[in-house]
């Protein structure tokens, strides 16, 4: 998977608890992205980063925050998880904004 890992791979949590998902890359790519994938909606961008400490919102950013303190790590935090955030979360990286993106293996999150 092009030197990109996600942790955890599976998580079950309860409504109202905080959750942090981690994306780690070894490719030294500038851009990193968090998507969620749900049936009928496809992949939707949550947040993305275009450099260390440089982030911006995507299409479905409400209820999510991100941080990027190092080139290789991009964290996605659900401050207070809700059942509507049950989804499969994918991290992706790319060298430029217009190049192909390389995706991680995904994290399946279930919020009860």
């Amino acid at each position, binding site marked *: 998977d092009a030197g990109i890992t996600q942790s955890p791979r599976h998580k079950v949590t309860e409504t109202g608890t905080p959750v942090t998902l981690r994306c780690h890359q070894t490719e030294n790519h500038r851009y990193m*992205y968090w998507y969620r994938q749900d049936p009928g909606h*496809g992949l939707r961008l949550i947040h*993305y980063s275009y450099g260390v400490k440089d982030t911006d919102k995507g299409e479905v950013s409400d209820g999510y925050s991100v941080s990027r303190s190092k080139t290789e790590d991009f964290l996605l935090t659900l401050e207070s998880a809700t059942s509507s955030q049950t989804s499969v979360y994918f991290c992706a990286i790319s060298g430029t904004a*217009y*190049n*192909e993106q390389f*995706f991680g*293996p995904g994290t399946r999150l279930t919020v009860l």
Partner: protein
Amino acid sequence: SQKIEQNSEALNIQEGKTATLTCNYTNYSPAYLQWYRQDPGRGPVFLLLIRENEKEKRKERLKVTFDTTLKQSLFHITASQPADSATYLCALVSNFGNEKLTFGTGTRLTIIP
């Protein structure tokens, strides 16, 4: 509003035939269009990129066309094989420099032996 439509949720094709998938968009001025393949339980994998000034791109048995007048891209797999069975996603990068890739919902392709 901006929309990307892949007009078949599922497509069944006989092995050996050409599979053709469609991606239509509205209210976009795409700089680039990309196609990805996704297998169950895995992340998408990049296949091909085509720029707005390119009409066609080929890679082995894959061919992509891009018609900015029709606002459509076609993705062809020739001599299809059961191993080509997967979900195929198209994605656009806008000309307006927001650096975001927007995905269609995908077409699930099944190649029948």
